[in-house]
């Protein structure tokens, strides 16, 4: 009986040794988290950010309007990685005029200046034809395609003439440049994941998701049995 107990004790000890080491080291580090400034140090490993679901951003619309990257996330419009205004409708495209960047949704034109600052939103009340489908340029003049037809204006955008043109350069969506994507990831998700956060998740098993929590439960049970078998064997020595 004693030999069998000793064998069980050894096997369990070997099985959970690695976990005990991890728990001890992470526990000690977490105990001194403030002193070691673990909450101030960020990890930005791509696989880790991806694991935490903070490594990527997905824009609803992206348009490259030199020198800016214009994107839409929900109802927010971004110039590069800076939110400048909101748009309740999906962004359809944009063009660059001399001193103005014009973005189009189906019910309005959103005007930005050459520095990417929001000027104003022009809707049908300001004379912009409704039900816009796309925006483009024809020899430097803004052109919009609506359900009713094609309209051309000048840089003032307050007078539109119904026209039929060939060879309009329509605005097309683009993929997000990597440099802007990195800035947007930083905007939405911050600097990364703190060392303290990762250590805490390793310590409580949540780094592996729900399985990790169950695994730690199992380690806890095995540690309890290990303690009990240890005490039992120690007491046996005095008999």
């Amino acid at each position, binding site marked *: 009986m004693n030999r069998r107990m000793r064998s069980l004790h050894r096997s369990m000890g070997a099985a959970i040794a690695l976990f005990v080491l991890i728990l001890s080291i992470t526990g000690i580090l977490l105990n001194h988290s403030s002193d070691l400034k673990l909450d101030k140090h960020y990890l930005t490993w791509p696989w880790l950010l991806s694991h935490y679901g903070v490594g990527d951003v997905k824009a609803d619309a992206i348009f490259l309007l030199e020198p800016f990257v214009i994107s839409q996330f929900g109802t927010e419009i971004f110039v590069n990685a800076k939110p400048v205004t909101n748009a*309740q409708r999906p962004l359809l495209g944009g063009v660059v005029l001399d001193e103005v960047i014009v973005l189009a949704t189906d019910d309005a034109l959103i005007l930005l200046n050459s520095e990417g600052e929001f000027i104003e939103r022009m809707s049908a*009340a300001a004379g912009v034809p409704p039900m816009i489908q796309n925006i483009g340029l024809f020899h430097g003049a803004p052109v919009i395609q609506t359900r009713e037809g094609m309209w051309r204006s000048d840089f003032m955008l307050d007078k539109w003439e119904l026209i039929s043109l060939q060879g309009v350069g329509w605005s097309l969506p683009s993929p997000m440049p990597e440099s802007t994507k990195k800035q947007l990831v930083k905007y939405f998700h911050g600097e990364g994941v703190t060392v303290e956060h990762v250590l805490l998740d390793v310590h409580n098993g949540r780094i592996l998701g729900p399985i990790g929590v169950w695994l730690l439960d199992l380690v806890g049970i095995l540690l309890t049995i290990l303690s009990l078998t240890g005490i039992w064997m120690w007491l046996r020595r005095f008999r």
Partner: protein
Amino acid sequence: MNRTHNAFWQLMFISLLFCSFTVTVFARGVNQTNEDFIAETFSNDLPKSKVVWIKDDLRPAIANILGHEYAGLRIRYWQKAQRTAWILEEIGKESPITFGVVVTDGKIEQVKVLAYRESRGGEIQQRAFTRQYADAKLSEQKLDRHIDGISGATLSVRAMTSVVTLALYLTQFINQTE
């Protein structure tokens, strides 16, 4: 006994239906498009829109009224004789609320919620509430009257009061500079 029981549950059901209806009345969405508001205000005889650029002393004055910087470089308005219509947006708690404001002879003629996007506080769309602003004037960059708040709609009421004050201030500004 059974009949009383049935009557009770029928009454409860009707009350629930009524409650859900009243919630729907003040729900989110577009009440009126900007162009319909302008067309209605000027009886389809639309004046050409103009813009006021937010620069120099006007920017800090607007920031003082709104309690934050105005997120735009110019504001569009429509003016005919003594009537000026403004379409202004202001965030209540999280989402922008679109207001239509008509100023006549330096007083508020009408204020309307054109689009309400907040999840709570939709009671400000009620005419019984917006009537409080009728004939309101500016007094030292503030409204000349107290506006009764609505429980649970504090931020939306604040947004409407700021926008009404802004419309009066901007009308005064454009009339002085023209």
